[in-house]
C-alpha cells in the first residue's frame, strides 16, 4: 500500500505553541479515517496541519507533491452576505486545477456539471448557496470537493448541522463517491456513531489529556476509551 500522508513526530499547535505531540500517522490510499474527540480536542488543528493550512510546530508532514485535496468545510463558515450560486461555489472546487488568472475550460465545466449530477444538486445550480437547507449545503460542498478530482476527500464535521435523515444521505453519498472514485477519506466529527459506522480507521485525539491514538476501530475504541472520552459503559456495542 502507498502512504499518501505521513506525519512524523509532529507537534500540532498555533503560533509555535505546541498543543499536542509528537504524533505519528500514516494514511494509505483508499482508507477511510475518522477523527474523533471531544469539542476543543484539537481535531480541526490536526486537520489543518495535515492539509498544510497550519504549519506543524515541530516534526514533518509528508504528502506527495501531486496530491489533490477535496475539502468540505463546515457550511457555517461561509459568510451568508455573499450571493454566490451553487454552480459558482462548486466551480471553486475546480480551481485546484486552474491557475490564478486563468479561466475554466469547457472540460472543467463538464467536470463541474458531473459533480453536480453525482451529488444530486444539478437542480439547485442556480439557487444561492445561502438559501439552501443544511443537507443541500453539504451536498453542494461535496460536489465542490469532488469537482477538482481529488485524491483525498477531507470532511470537517459534515453532518454537524443536519438531521438524522440528512446525515444518512450525506454519508451514503460519501461512501458511494469513495468507492466509485477510489478516494481516501479523512473525516472529522464529534459524532461517535457516524464515525464508527463509516470509517475503517480511527484517530482519537484529546489535547487536554495529551491523548492521541490512531489505528483500527477495536484498537482505538477500547472500553476504557469509550468510557473516558464518551461516557459509554463496557459492552455499549458501538463498534
Amino acid at each position, binding site marked *: 500500500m502507498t502512504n499518501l500522508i505521513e506525519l512524523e513526530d509532529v507537534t500540532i499547535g498555533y503560533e509555535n505553541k505546541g498543543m499536542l505531540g509528537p504524533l505519528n500517522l500514516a494514511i494509505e490510499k483508499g482508507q477511510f479515517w475518522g477523527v474523533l474527540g471531544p469539542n476543543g480536542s484539537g481535531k480541526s488543528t490536526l486537520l489543518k496541519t495535515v*492539509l*498544510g*493550512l497550519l504549519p506543524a510546530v515541530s516534526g514533518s508532514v509528508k504528502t506527495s507533491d501531486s496530491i489533490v*485535496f477535496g*475539502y468540505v*468545510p463546515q457550511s457555517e*463558515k*461561509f*459568510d451568508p*452576505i*455573499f*450571493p*454566490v*450560486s451553487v454552480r*459558482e*461555489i462548486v466551480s*471553486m*472546487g475546480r*480551481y*485546484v486545477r*486552474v491557475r*490564478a*488568472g486563468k*479561466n*475554466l475550460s469547457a472540460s472543467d465545466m463538464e467536470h463541474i456539471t458531473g459533480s453536480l449530477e453525482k451529488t444530486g444538486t444539478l437542480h439547485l445550480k442556480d439557487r*444561492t448557496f445561502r*438559501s439552501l437547507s443544511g443537507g443541500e449545503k453539504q451536498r453542494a460542498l461535496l460536489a465542490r470537493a469532488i469537482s*477538482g478530482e481529488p485524491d483525498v476527500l477531507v470532511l470537517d464535521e459534515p453532518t454537524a448541522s443536519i438531521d438524522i435523515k440528512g446525515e444518512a444521505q450525506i454519508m451514503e453519498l460519501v461512501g458511494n463517491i469513495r468507492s466509485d472514485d477510489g478516494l481516501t477519506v479523512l473525516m472529522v466529527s464529534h459524532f461517535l456513531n457516524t464515525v464508527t459506522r463509516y470509517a475503517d480507521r480511527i484517530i482519537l485525539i484529546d489535547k487536554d489529556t495529551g491523548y492521541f491514538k490512531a489505528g483500527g476501530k477495536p484498537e482505538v475504541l477500547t472500553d476504557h476509551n469509550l468510557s473516558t472520552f464518551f461516557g459509554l459503559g463496557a459492552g455499549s456495542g458501538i463498534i
Partner: protein
Amino acid sequence: MGILSEFISSYFLWRDPMIVGAVSGAVCGFLGVYVVLRRIIFVSAALTQISSFGVALSFYLEGLGMGVLSSFIHPFILSTVLTSLAAVFFAMKRDFSRISQEGVIGFGFLIASGAVIILGDRITKGAHDIANILFGNAVVVDPGDVYIIPAVALAALVIHIVFYKDFVFVSFDEQTARLFKYPVRTLNTVILITIAVVVAVATRALGALPVFSFLALPPLTSLFLTERLKLVFAISVIIGALSATLGYFFSFVLSIPTGASMAVCASVFFVLGLLWREVKVRT
C-alpha cells in the same frame, strides 16, 4: 428659463466634473462590492481619510515653499503613495500584538482624520480647502482629472476582470484558496491596492465623503436588489454613476455642496433599495 434648460445650457461648466464624478462613482461602486462582501467598510473609510491626509500634507508642504520637491509633493502622487502603503499594510498584517486588525484600521482612520484637521489649521490656503477635501466640492475639477480618473478606473477594471474568479475566490473562501496554493496574500493586496489608488485619485477630485459613500452604499443597495453576484457588480456600478451624476445635478441647480449632495443621492438609492427588499420579502 427652466432649471433643466439652464442646466443643459451650462454644460461647459459641469461637463468635466460630471465625467469625473460619474466615472468615480462607477468604479467605486464596482470595487465597493469587495469592500462590503469582505466586511471591510471601515478600511475604505480609513483609506479615504489617509488619502485626504496625503492631499492636505501636499498642500502643507507646498506652503512651506518646497518648490524643488514639488513634483513629489503633488497631491495626486503623495495621496496615492500614502493610501497604497496603507492598503499594503492592511493587507499584509493580520494581528498586531493581540489588537484586532479592525482596531488598527480604526487607529489609521482616527490619526489620519486628526492629522488632516491639524494640517488644515496650518495651511495658508485656509480651512476651506480642507473642508473641500473632507466633504467634497467638485464644482470644478482639475482638467487633468478628466483623463487621470478614467485611466485609473479602466486599469483597475481590467485587473478586476482578468482576476475576477480569483478575487471572488479569495474573498469568499480564503482557506480553500490557500489549500489550492493560490497566491492569497498577493491577490488580497492587489484588491486593496486597486481600491487605494482609486480612492486616492477620486478623493482628491471629489472629496472623502462622496468617495466613501460610493464605496459603501451602491454595493449595499445592489445586494438588496439581486441574488446574482455578477449583477451585484453591474447594478452597483450603475447606482454609483447615477448617485454622482444626480448628486452633481442637484448640487448645481439647488446650490448645495456637491460632495454632500452625491452622498445623499447614494443614500436615497440605499433607502429605496431597502424598501424594495422589504416589500419583496413581505409579498
